[in-house]
Structure formats: structure tokens, C-alpha cells
């Protein structure tokens, strides 16, 4: 029965059912709300980025090569989740799972770099949440993004684990499609973090 369903999967399986349509629309509205959440943190960061309390400044602290590698990891993971979405739309379940696994691994590598970076800042430079208003704004903004990456990795791991044997159908397609949207959104937020926090921090 399932094989029959698979062969009849419509062109946009993520939006073929009412359930799928609702999830799709609701998730985009959620992303609009998330945009505002991050905007509030960006606004605070921009206001406090020079409030260093006599401590280390952003120009002394940030190292561009590390940020560049992190950016490339996340950008590449955005591409692999595009491949996963394309596999979803052409009804290749195993291929889609494969690309999502690659996406999650790249996300994990990104997270590892971020943990190393925060640890380095705290122990080598004494740049902490409490050291200055800039420190608070920095860890809140970049940390909230890191928490989103963590949530994304847990989300896709659970999705894969739970639906591995079910295969592609109109029930699983919306779930995987929404994760891909979420992951792109995380990359969009990172684009503004590397620009506003790191690159502008280097310029002064």
C-alpha cells in the first residue's frame, strides 16, 4: 500500500494535505516572529557593542579565520538541506535522509567551533556574560543563535529516528520540509551575526 502511495506522491507533497498546508503557513509566520526576536537582540547588541567596561574590545577579541570557517560550515549545511528538499520533492527518501544527516553533522561541527570559541573568550580574555554590557549582549545574541542550532540538530535527529522506517508519504513530507526551512532561517540569522557582530566588530 505504501509503495502505491509513494508512486502517486504529488508535486509538492509538503503542501498536499490540509495538515501540511497549515504547518507550512504557520511555520512561515513563526519564522516572521523569530525574525523579530533576533532583531531585538541585534538592536541591543548594536547599542551596547562599545560598552566594554574597560575590558577587551571586539577588535582585540575576534579572530576572522575561525568565524570564516564557521560561516562556511553553516552555509554548506544550508546547501545540503536544499539537496534534501530536492530529494523530498522527487520522492527519494533515503537520499533525503542522507543529506539531512550531512546537514546535522555540519551543524554539530559549527556548534563545536562555537563552544571552543566561547570557552577561549572566557578563559583567555575574561570576556564573560558579567564582564561588560557588551559581553552580556554578545553572549545573549550569539548564544540564542547557538541554541537554535542545537534545537535544530535535536529536531532532525528525532525526525529521522522516528520516521526512518515509515518512508516518504504525505505525513512525513511536511515535517522534513519544515526542518529544511528552519535550517535556512538559522543560516540567515548567522549571515547577520557574522556581518554585524564579527565583521563590524573588526572594523570598529
Amino acid at each position: 500500500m505504501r509503495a502505491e502511495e509513494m508512486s502517486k506522491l504529488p508535486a509538492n507533497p509538503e503542501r498536499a494535505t490540509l495538515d501540511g498546508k497549515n504547518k507550512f503557513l504557520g511555520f512561515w509566520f513563526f519564522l516572521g516572529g523569530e525574525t523579530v526576536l533576533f532583531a531585538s537582540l541585534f538592536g541591543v547588541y548594536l547599542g551596547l557593542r562599545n560598552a566594554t567596561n574597560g575590558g577587551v574590545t571586539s577588535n582585540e577579541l575576534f579572530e576572522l579565520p575561525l568565524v570564516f570557517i564557521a560561516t562556511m560550515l553553516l552555509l554548506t549545511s544550508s546547501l545540503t538541506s536544499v539537496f534534501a528538499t530536492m530529494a523530498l520533492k522527487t520522492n527519494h527518501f533515503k537520499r533525503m535522509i542522507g543529506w539531512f544527516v550531512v546537514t546535522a553533522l555540519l551543524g554539530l561541527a559549527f556548534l563545536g567551533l562555537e563552544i571552543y570559541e566561547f570557552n577561549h573568550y572566557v578563559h583567555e580574555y575574561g570576556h564573560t556574560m558579567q564582564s561588560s554590557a557588551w559581553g552580556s549582549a554578545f553572549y545573549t545574541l550569539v548564544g540564542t543563535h547557538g541554541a537554535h542550532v542545537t534545537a535544530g540538530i535535536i529536531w532532525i535527529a528525532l525526525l529521522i529516528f522516528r520516521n526512518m522506517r515509515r518512508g516518504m508519504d504525505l505525513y512525513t513530507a511536511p515535517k522534513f520540509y519544515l526542518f529544511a526551512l528552519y535550517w535556512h532561517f538559522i543560516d540567515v540569522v548567522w549571515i547577520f551575526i557574522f556581518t554585524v557582530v564579527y565583521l563590524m566588530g573588526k572594523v570598529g
Partner: protein
Amino acid sequence: MSTHESTEHVSEHDQSHLDIHHKIAHEKEFKQQIVSFIMMIFITMLAFVAVASDAISDSFTVIFIMILAGIQLVFQLYMFMHLSHKGHQYPAWGIFFGVFVAGTCVVALMGMIW
């Protein structure tokens, strides 16, 4: 990855519902995605180089990298998140209303703190 492919149950036969037009459309989309990705890598490198080099003035660099970030936002939304595809009118309203509120919020917060 390749080991996964070999165990894949979706055969040519199962794909028969995808007519030739669909396949051409998907191949075209694939090429567009790859080009978008290369463009995004290029834009990212440009931003890092602009900051690393001393040839450009600081105030110009800030404007320049913000424009590059804006271009990348459009690439992500329209290419990777398929906002240009059919049936994305409401999502576009949702996300752009979010972006509008976000812009207002950033300007207001920056202004208030200073």
C-alpha cells in the same frame, strides 16, 4: 552516502509519475541552487576580504558588508527557501512583515540605548 543509494527502494518505475517536464524543471532548479551557493560563497569571501584589507575606509566597509548581507538574505529566501515558488504569497507577507518589524525594532533599540 553511496551505500544508502544502493539500498534505495525507489526504482525508475516509481519515478514514472514524474513526467519529463518535471525532470527538466528539477534539473534546472538544481543548477540554479548550485549557482546561488557559489554566489553566496563569493559574497561571503568579499565581505571578509573587505574587512581584512586596509584599502577601504571603515565607514564604507560597514555599508558595503551590510548590503552584501542583504543580498545573501534575498538569495536564502528566494532560492533556498523557495519563496519565489507558487503558493508562497502568505508566507511572503508573514516573513516581510517580520522583517519590517525587525528593522523598526533594531533602529528603535539602537536609538534608545544611545
